């Protein structure tokens, strides 16, 4: 199983632990990730506020470079995944747009022809590796741990070929494979506020509060995410939420790859568990077979 890996900007900084844990967990499961050479920003949401064709051009450059490897592209960030997936679909369908952007890409010696698929890293685990394979390789069973799967938005929407976007269960499958119990809570696909945390802070804080309250109410010990912005919003703003709403949330928020990697026996320090503002390390220690 070989893929070309597009980490995205956040995974170089604020979500370094996602990048590190993604690579280690993939390796452990026999997935070979080769980082895309000289990749650029996917444009996030902001680019679409300024110019749509420019936004697609950014993604098209990455896709054209990825095409040279002959491998499918894997993105761990839901926003990168959504942007690249959308550009891939638009450019495949619309020859005029493709030609327009290809003229620009020639300046960098590139051409988009649309030969590959864009996958979320989670898809690689659930579909290509398979849940059973993961279950077989678990050495630290997380039995007794209550993990809330947080999907957020852009791994699901707009509809990117997934069958069930209103009540998906693939994260629950991954959580169950580790031995942990997946917490069933109704807001698992609701929005964390995204970049509104910066541009419309009160709106995002309310969304974050609702999500934390819902997961905590259903007994979650920790939340797992598949997107750096979701992780930052849910984790780093708990203090502000607590002050504003008089709550006392102290809920660890980890990347799915950190929880998977830990269950597969990768030491927690290697997975950068502990780089959170409120560390869940103590919570996990009791599940470890070996000293971690």
């Amino acid at each position, binding site marked *: 199983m070989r893929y070309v890996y597009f980490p995205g900007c956040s995974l170089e900084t604020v979500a370094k632990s996602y990048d590190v844990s993604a690579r280690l967990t993939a390796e452990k499961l026999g997935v070979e990730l080769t980082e895309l050479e000289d990749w650029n*920003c996917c444009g996030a949401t902001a680019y679409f506020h300024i110019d749509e064709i420019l936004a697609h051009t950014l993604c098209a450059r990455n896709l054209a470079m990825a095409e040279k490897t002959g491998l499918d592209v894997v993105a761990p960030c839901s926003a990168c995944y959504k942007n690249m997936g959308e550009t891939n679909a638009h450019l495949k369908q619309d020859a005029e747009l493709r030609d327009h952007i290809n003229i*620009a890409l020639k300046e960098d010696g590139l051409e988009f022809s649309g030969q590959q698929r864009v996958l979320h890293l989670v898809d690689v685990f659930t579909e290509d590796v398979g849940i059973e394979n993961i279950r077989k390789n678990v050495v630290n069973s997380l039995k007794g741990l209550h993990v809330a799967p947080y999907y957020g938005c852009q791994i699901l*929407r707009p*509809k990117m070929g997934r069958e069930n976007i209103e009540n998906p269960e693939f994260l629950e499958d991954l959580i169950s494979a580790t031995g942990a119990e997946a917490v069933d809570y109704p807001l698992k696909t609701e929005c964390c506020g*995204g970049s509104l945390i910066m541009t*419309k802070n009160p709106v995002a804080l309310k969304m974050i509060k609702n999500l934390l309250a819902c997961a905590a109410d259903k007994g979650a010990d920790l939340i797992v995410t598949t997107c750096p912005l979701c992780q930052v919003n849910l984790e780093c703003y708990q203090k502000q939420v607590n002050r504003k709403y008089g709550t006392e949330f102290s809920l660890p928020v980890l990347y799915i790859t950190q929880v998977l990697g830990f269950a597969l026996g990768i030491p927690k320090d290697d997975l950068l568990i502990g780089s959170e503002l409120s560390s869940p390390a103590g919570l996990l220690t009791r599940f470890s077979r070996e000293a971690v």
Partner: protein
Amino acid sequence: MTERPSFQKEVSNLMSVLDGNPIDVCIQCGTCSGSCPAVEYMDYSPRHIIALIRSDLKDEVLNSDTIWCCSSCYNCTVRCPKEIKITEMMYALKRYSIWKHQYREGAIGPAFSRKFVRMVVKTGKSYEPGLAPTFMFRYGMRGMIDNMQLGMSLFNKKRIAILPKTVKRIKNFRRVLNRIIPIGVEK
């Protein structure tokens, strides 16, 4: 004299590079508003915005808070029974509003998006600390202290880079973007 197109027509044509995605098929059912996680903060709900566009009430739409409350969660888009891409419509309205320099006073969104794009055009990558000035001082003293504390905590955990990164073939990268927007990108 040629006639100006209606606001509805303008917005429909701005919606998506792929297709016009017309909004005249909207049945005003309100599924979008019922699905929107930010609706309680909007002065007009998404359904109401469509009604205003169809009534050619351009100023009401552009001066509203609604378009800057959209977080691109796509709940409305996947549930609309008429398959209107409402999130794309919000993007189109943001673009229109930024082009015309017409938006509600104090909106942070336009400055944030412009700064983000300038940054990516320059380096090829986004850099969180570079965005801070656009919102840092906009939530009062308390907000500023909160943001500074958070920045420090993340820095201590090595989660903030001191310097922005740049793509390696930056000259080629800028030439690519220059082809799309023939002026305005620094060499």
